[in-house]
């Protein structure tokens, strides 16, 4: 019984890995959605609507750096259109610039995780990290 369950579990993980692999558009959109959700929490703290919580704040920056590590590889050539993607053609025309923008996002997130020890330092670091959202979306994203 246990063995069957383990096999089934193994299969499920294997299958979902394959599905994820073959659907980079959905995967990058999900990663970006989690970045959006983390930003909602961060904004509430920055505005004083939620209390400052060191562990939570670290978690927000971790979502950012995880996404920055993972997302750049999710733009294979066969994912330029379809799946309601909003990625602009410039992602593929200027891969170097796109990767640099993610590297900067990751660096700002790492800086935030290290420096945000209270509300004031969090506000500054969160402000710096979230400047990357608009500047990357300006160049590499287009609503269709």
């Amino acid at each position, binding site marked *: 019984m246990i063995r069957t369950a383990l096999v089934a579990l193994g299969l499920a993980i294997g299958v979902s890995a394959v599905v994820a692999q073959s659907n980079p558009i959905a995967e990058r959109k999900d990663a970006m959605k989690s970045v959006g959700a983390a930003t909602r929490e961060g904004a509430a703290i920055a505005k004083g609507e939620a209390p400052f919580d060191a562990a939570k704040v670290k978690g927000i920056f971790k979502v950012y750096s995880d996404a920055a590590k993972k997302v750049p590889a999710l733009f294979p050539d066969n994912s330029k259109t379809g799946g309601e993607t909003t990625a602009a053609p410039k992602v593929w025309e200027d891969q170097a610039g796109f990767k640099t923008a993610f590297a900067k996002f990751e660096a700002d997130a790492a800086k935030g995780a290290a420096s945000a020890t209270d509300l004031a330092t969090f506000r500054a670091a969160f402000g710096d990290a979230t400047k990357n959202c608009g500047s990357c979306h*300006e160049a590499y994203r287009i609503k269709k």
Partner: protein
Amino acid sequence: MRRLLITLLVFALAGIAGFFVLTDPRVVSPGPEIGTLPQPDIENGKLLFAAGGCASCHATPGQDDKTRLGGGLELGSPFGKFHAPNISPHTRDGIGNWGTADFIQAMAAGVSPAGQHLYPSFPYTSYRLMTPKALADLLAYIRTLPAVEGRAPPHELPFPFNIRRMVGGWKLLFFDGAPFKPDPTKSDEWNRGAYLVQGPGHCAECHSARNSLGAIVQATRYAGGPDPEGKGWVPNITQSEDGLSKWSKSEIAELLKSGFTPEFDSVGGSMAAVVRNTAQLPEADRLAMAEYLKSLPPVQGPPRPPKPASGG
């Protein structure tokens, strides 16, 4: 037979002459009465410069200083390529030699100091809502910015769009030169918002569909449409289902400040530059714009093009 030909010729000539008279820049779009203006208010000029997004088009591309207005940005359109000109206070290459009346004439009537029509790719179709006093303030602010040397390349427009006189015909059909008129039945905040959105903010210039001659389709103003430069889609910002009906006033003001939507997506494309500008306005002005947008009746925009299939 001969008489008929002569009659036709006379009619043809009269037609051409009529077109010439009617499309004369000063006939079709006379500048506003200026009168005597008080000492310019440079701070107000700075605010209008931000609200108007002048730097988005006129700042020299590829440099961080958005107050260096050397021009050169390429603007695509269905009619050809435009290059935003140098509007820095440089006397030879910019507008350093322009008088206040010249500037008002360009901003409110779309006519250059040489008496030629300006193309509506320069959104004077919205800026004309600013009063002569406001425009004088704006010019006074631009005069405090650095003079930048060098001219932008000429526009790349095929015949007949390269004939500026043609714009006179366009203005006859589509240009309304009236300044902003406040609505006394509405609050001061609503009127401030209406002025900023319709005039300096020129929001409709992107958020509306255009007809084949490049003029905004009035019935679907603010209801979204294809991007004027041909890249992507601009969303509906009326109170319709697919517009801003579910956004609160403060959520709209937040977007204009930080670029974040209520879902904490961050607006991109050409809206990112708009947000950089509206972020510089006082909070009261962003709330006023939101107040006005919340009052727009719901309008269904044109259908979005079908999504292309996967791959490629």
